[in-house]
């Protein structure tokens, strides 16, 4: 079941927000496959700082919901060993900004074990990390440094933007035999509900989705920024197409090129810093493979190349509807 348009209003199901969809999907996957185990810090009695694992310790016990010592590298490193032994591990890193101590295990073992063993050792694992800003939190709680992950072979990087997407992508990630980083845009954890089917379904881990179709300009985005792309699309005098990348690695290059070849104009909208962010990659792909179809240069509406600022100024860092609108307007107004 692949979702290619925005509207899910015809969809029957239980009303859920993004974080309840995470919770429901974890429960569903743990029920259907007993090799699925969760591990992380604070995920037990409290159910995680965002309550994503609420109720699961009670239901599945402490050997399947493993509340660990405070050690991101220890979590990732032991999770790799468990995954090598036929467990499907779903570690939670409390915030993306706490991931850096685990970078050693990430680079040395998690992304490399399958390749270095010639395919003989698999590391099926879905690392969940709440990420990105807009929640007025403290230092290292609002990071969008997905580029570090995307730059690395041997790992999938997935970002949902709606509750429906969350369930389908998270289930597919847990069932994948690859390591997956599942980045949860925490700003929209509880912003808005939609009906999510009770039955099991998965969404593909290598396809972007069209949020809406348009003829004049394509906005490429993902995560919490998708809502700003939609608002901007409603406010500009142009027929805007929105592509939710949703799997940052591997990237769905075919859909990216298909869209820009039709519209001839492109804006990439993301919270991450601009330099070497997803915008750089999408822009480079368009330059290499669709240059002669362009009616304007590609623009990147992004965060700035700074450390994520304090919460009094984070609104000025974060792209919003206005920044998205300005970028779209600029490429619409441009003439060669």
């Amino acid at each position, binding site marked *: 079941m692949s979702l290619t348009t925005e509207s899910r209003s015809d969809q029957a199901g239980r009303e859920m927000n993004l974080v309840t969809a995470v919770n429901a999907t974890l429960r569903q996957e743990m029920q259907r496959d007993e090799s699925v185990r969760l591990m992380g810090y604070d995920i037990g009695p409290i159910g995680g700082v965002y309550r994503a694992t609420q109720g699961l310790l009670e239901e599945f016990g402490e050997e399947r919901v493993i509340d660990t010592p405070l050690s991101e590298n220890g979590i990732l490193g*032991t999770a790799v060993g468990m995954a090598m032994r036929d467990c499907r591990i779903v570690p939670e890193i409390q915030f993306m900004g706490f991931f850096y101590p685990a970078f050693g295990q990430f680079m040395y073992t998690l992304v490399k074990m399958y390749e270095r063993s010639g395919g003989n050792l698999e590391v099926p694992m879905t690392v969940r990390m709440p990420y990105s800003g807009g929640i007025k939190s403290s230092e290292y709680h609002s990071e969008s440094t997905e580029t570090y992950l995307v730059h690395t072979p041997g790992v999938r990087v997935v970002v949902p933007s709606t509750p429906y997407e969350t369930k389908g992508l998270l289930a597919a990630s847990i069932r994948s035999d690859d390591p997956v980083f599942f980045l949860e845009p925490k700003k929209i954890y509880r912003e808005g509900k939609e009906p999510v089917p009770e039955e099991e379904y998965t969404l593909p881990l290598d396809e972007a989705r069209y949020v809406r179709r348009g003829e004049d300009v394509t906005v490429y985005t993902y995560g919490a920024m998708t809502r700003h792309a939609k608002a901007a699309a409603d406010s500009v005098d142009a027929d805007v197409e929105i592509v939710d990348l949703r799997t940052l690695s591997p990237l769905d290059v075919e859909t990216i090129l298909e869209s820009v070849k039709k519209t001839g104009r492109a804006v990439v909208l993301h919270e991450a810093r601009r330099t070497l962010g997803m915008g750089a990659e999408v822009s480079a792909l368009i330059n290499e493979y669709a240059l002669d179809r362009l009616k304007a240069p590609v623009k990147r509406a992004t965060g700035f190349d700074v450390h994520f600022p304090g919460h009094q100024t984070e609104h000025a860092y974060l792209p919003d509807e206005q920044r998205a609108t300005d970028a779209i307007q600029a490429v619409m107004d441009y003439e060669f």
Partner: protein
Amino acid sequence: MSQWQEQRPSEEFYRVLDPDGNVVGEVPDVDEETLTRMYRTMVTSREFDEKALRMQRRGEVSIVARATGEEAVSCGSAAALEEGDWCFPSYRQTPAALYWGADMARAVAGMMGAEPETVDEHLPVEEEPPVSFTPVYVPLAVNVTNAVGSAMVDRFRDNDAVTMSYIGDGSTSQGDFHEALNFAGVFDAPAVTVCQNNQWAISVPAHRQTAAETFAQKAVAHGVPYDRVDGNDVLAVYAKAKEHCERARNGEGAGYIEAVTYRMVEHNTADEESVYRDADEREYWEDKDPIDRLETFLLRTGVLEEGDPERIREEVRDEIQDAVDEAREVPVSDPETMFEHHLHEESGGSWAQEHQRQELRAERNGENPFTDFTGEGLE
């Protein structure tokens, strides 16, 4: 030229055989077959190291890190494992793998730079060793953390398997080591960690690695039971490893062993030990050679007879030569194997990888790989 002063480690450790092969402790309960297998494994490893060094000198393999002089640590500890156990080695544990029947030709082909896919295709595994070995880890200490994860699985599943892993003295300075032991302690994981303390981490001596009195006591902070043994005494290593494995197997949690030995050769063939080491110190340690020590004991007790050591040496040299000959027959890896085994295609493929594979192919065919201006591919 300034050098670090070498400091001889304390000999306050568990020992069964003294350097002259005299029994000074309780000989563990080991049958003659196992004793012979230990001896043969250590001899094989020593000869394998010599062969690998010659191959490196001829340019057939790029770099070699030998286990020479340290054979008793990994041989004695691995001998304490049983069928169904797991082992996460670092790069100086050739004897552990050889003890459990690792295929030498496959190891040589790997050293010669063959991709794992090529090795699998041309030297398929006929029978998996009864103990599962992961590929050798090169980054320091990360194997220990993975090993504890493996052990946690057995703990959760109520298996009586043990996971053993190895670390050097220098690697105990890494966070991964402490994170691993902490998890092992907290989760009562059946993980036995062996610290192969060979006194040197490349050019940095053990006393520059830690201010702790011993490497063994690093386990105290993690609540993991530990021992310190004479690492050149294979029976001592075996005895303590057996105790820790049994305890772990019985659900009593993790164990840790510091095995005191000496790196009698360079760190690896890219190293120049004469710059930082004292030749006299090597002579001191040569008198403690673990193979000589066990050989003396086995000849005295009649497990080996006169002439057996020479015969065994000849046999293993022939085995090694056969393995090298076999490995030399493995064809050079197809460069396109570099694209394999990054992601499973059935979970969704990578456009970039497929495109770059085409580019490499074009480049190798003498074509220009930069001619795709539509994203539809080169062909």
